[in-house]
């Protein structure tokens, strides 16, 4: 029996996205990269075009876009309670809510602008990515509300992915100078957690009656998994990526800053799931999502710092009625 092929997407996201964010230490999490210039530009345009600019930052992380523009009222939400708490400590009293992109607790037709920066790519199935975009479109205001989406791109100069569905380790800035050999116990406890994760997936499976179509995704996760995590039982302290592996799979620093020579955090528990987007895929996904939401159309799509990006506007086009 192959237990992986029946794991549930929400459980995978819990393990490889939400739990990871909740476990990262605050120093890692608060090391925000600077705001992306094009996101800033988008918000500036929203502020100048709309008389009453309400903005929702869906998946706001530690909140770097929430207070970016004082003439906007931005409410952030994130699935991770830890990120929300850090954001609220960092910027006192910012409006922030713990919420799931798939079930946004906001009124319909409300926001002049919605940000979805680096969020959709953490969802493990096509259907869930579709639903996430539909939710963002639902809360967008009918007349000219705009949604900005950033998703990590498969096509990157610096990195090569062996598959579209990958597990990417976080970089822990704090442990840069600390040799990972410092304690073997931490490694073995990591392995232990690893086993727990797998058994958790198994547990879920035994309760599941329907077979979900996540086989290929899981196979690719497993490939990466084996690539990144090679616990050599005899010498846990020398665990490293092979040179070849490093060439094949350039590791992404976390957060989104680009810097080389980082100490890689090899704690397997800090691998995050990404579905990296191929050129044109984001547009197709948005078009599919737009079928359910009247008047939504892509007004611009572009490539920016390793991301495929799109601006979607929601208009009720009276001329076509």
């Amino acid at each position, binding site marked *: 029996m192959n237990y992986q092929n029946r794991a549930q997407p929400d459980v995978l996201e819990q393990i490889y996205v939400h739990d990871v964010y909740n476990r990262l230490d605050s120093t890692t999490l608060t090391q925000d990269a600077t705001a992306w210039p094009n996101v800033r530009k988008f918000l500036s345009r929203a502020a100048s075009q709309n*008389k*009453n600019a309400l903005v929702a930052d869906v998946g706001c992380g530690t909140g770097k876009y929430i207070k970016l523009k004082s003439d906007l009222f931005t409410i952030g939400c994130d699935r991770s309670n830890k990120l929300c*708490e850090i954001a609220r400590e960092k910027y006192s*009293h910012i*409006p922030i809510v713990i919420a*799931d992109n798939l079930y946004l607790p*906001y009124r319909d037709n*409300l926001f002049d602008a919605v940000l979805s920066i680096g969020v959709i790519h953490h969802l493990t199935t096509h259907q869930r990515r579709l639903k996430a975009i539909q939710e963002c479109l639902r809360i967008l205001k009918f007349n000219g509300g705009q949604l900005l989406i950033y998703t990590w791109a498969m096509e990157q100069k610096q990195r090569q992915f062996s598959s579209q569905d990958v597990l990417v380790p976080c970089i822990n800035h704090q442990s840069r100078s600390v040799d990972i050999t410092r304690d073997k116990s931490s490694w073995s406890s990591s392995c232990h957690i690893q086993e727990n994760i797998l058994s958790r997936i198994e547990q879920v499976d035994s309760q599941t009656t329907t077979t979900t179509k996540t086989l290929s995704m899981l196979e690719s996760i497993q490939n990466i998994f084996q690539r990144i995590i090679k616990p050599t039982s005899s010498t846990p302290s020398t665990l490293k990526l092979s040179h070849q592996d490093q060439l094949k799979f350039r590791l992404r620093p976390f957060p989104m800053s680009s810097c080389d020579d980082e100490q890689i955090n090899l704690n397997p528990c800090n691998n995050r799931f990404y579905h990296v987007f191929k050129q044109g895929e984001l547009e197709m996904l948005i078009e599919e999502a737009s079928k359910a939401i009247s008047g939504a159309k892509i007004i611009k799509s572009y490539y920016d710092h390793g991301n495929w990006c799109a601006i979607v506007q929601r208009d009720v086009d009276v001329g076509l009625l």
Partner: protein
Amino acid sequence: MKLITHNMLTSNILKGVTKGFPLKIKADKVDNVSVDYNRDFITRIIPRIEYDALRAAVNDLGLNESLPETMPEAVQQDDEFLKTMHKVLLEYEVEEGELICPETGRKFPISKGIPNMLLQETEVS
């Protein structure tokens, strides 16, 4: 959680809930934070506010703020009203408490000023 945030939130993501708005507030701890008065900002935001829901929230919190039963017609000229709206929307912070779905009674905890609107898989439609 500010009352402007409360004004945007709904529990209609719950299975079987149609409107889910406004959420009832049970406040255990409310702080007062001072926010610079920005007349232009508050004038721009008011058209987006569900006024009845805001009045219900003021009532839930037992605030001693006088909001008229209906919004004044000439809002822009009514400085006193604008200042009250500014204060009510932005200066009260519910730090601890609960939001309660008006249709099902489902409670969403508010902790450290952050409402938790996550649902169980069995609760969603």
